[in-house]
């Protein structure tokens, strides 16, 4: 076995019952080469300071719970290898979100926005079960599949300066999910989503910085979804003058 070095993890702490603002606290942590930031946090919680709060679940980049700022970059703590990071690693809660406690952020705003874009298949009339399933060709699936991979980890919101400047912005992943359902040939709910998608707080608040897509751990590319919806909304606008379908 190789020798294990020790590194320092600086964690932003915020205990609402005692702290008026967040403070950093340093912990010495061993650094085996297979450890990620989440392992270090678990080590701290198990052996040094059980009061440290953070979200995690799967430890395999599937659940989307452990998003946080690692050395200033929004990352999943379970994908952030310590061996790539030097002797001191600074861990903070996701930017652009209110801090609930330590590394835990308040997600209420996101959940509300996610609900608003109706992220599910909407049919004008449901087909009776006995008529069978809705069929889909591989090409129809491929059209939207990348947008289904979103795990709601919120790294994109943390990377988005527009969301930071205007928290009313619906934001990258909720819009990407709206696009996912709009592109699905089984869905008929685009007109209902447009009320939010094409609003001022919708796609038009995005100025295509593109940081959301760069930090996305699942390569969803929310920026592409938003730009495509801008084009589609613009088409709607002009077709509206021609009396076309919205």
């Amino acid at each position: 076995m190789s020798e294990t070095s020790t590194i320092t993890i600086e964690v932003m702490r915020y205990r609402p019952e005692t702290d008026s603002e967040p403070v950093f606290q340093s912990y010495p942590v061993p650094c085996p080469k297979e450890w990620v930031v989440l392992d270090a946090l678990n080590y701290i919680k198990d052996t040094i300071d059980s009061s440290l709060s953070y979200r995690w679940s799967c430890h395999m980049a599937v659940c989307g719970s452990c998003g946080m700022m690692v050395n200033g970059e929004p990352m999943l703590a379970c994908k952030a290898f310590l061996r790539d990071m030097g002797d001191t690693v600074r861990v903070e809660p996701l930017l652009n979100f209110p801090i609930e406690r330590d590394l835990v952020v308040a997600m209420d705003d996101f959940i509300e926005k996610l609900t608003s874009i109706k992220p599910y298949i909407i049919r004008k009339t449901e087909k009776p079960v006995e008529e069978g399933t809705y069929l889909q060709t591989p090409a129809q699936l491929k059209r939207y599949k990348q947008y289904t991979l979103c795990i709601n980890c919120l790294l994109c919101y943390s990377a988005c300066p527009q969301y930071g400047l205007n928290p009313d912005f619906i934001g990258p992943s909720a819009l990407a999910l709206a696009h996912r359902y709009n592109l699905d040939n089984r869905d008929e709910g685009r007109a209902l989503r447009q009320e939010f998608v094409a609003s001022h707080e919708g796609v038009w608040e995005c100025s295509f910085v593109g940081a959301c897509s760069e930090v996305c751990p699942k390569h969803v590319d929310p920026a592409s979804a938003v730009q495509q919806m801008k084009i589609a909304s613009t088409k709607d606008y002009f077709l509206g003058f021609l009396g076309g379908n919205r």
Partner: protein
Amino acid sequence: MSRKPYIRPMSKTSWYLRDGRYKRYMAREVTCLLIGAYTGVFAMGIWRLAEGREAFTAFMAALHAPGAIMFHLVALAFSIYHSTTWFNVTPQAMPLMKGEDFVPGTLIVGAHYAAWAVASLVILIAVGA
């Protein structure tokens, strides 16, 4: 238990200094100002042309001043930067599907560069360069 979420303020004036991505974004956006300025100069040229031969000759002579040449070089560099940054993101805004697959992004970007080259060539031939 009552909640007391802490909100970290974001600077309205210097947020773009925080991240290299934001700086690159600002560079892309700011470079359009020089394109705007060049368009102004170009419009001025058309205005002068409409005023007659003398006015247009004076305008053309003014373009040979060192400051004017410098302005055009900077405007050209900024326009190229601005245009190429947009070309490079076109596959995200306009993905194309052919059959069951997406057309590779490099082809979409390449088509923009090709169209740019052809347009430039046509204009150069038209002005007899």
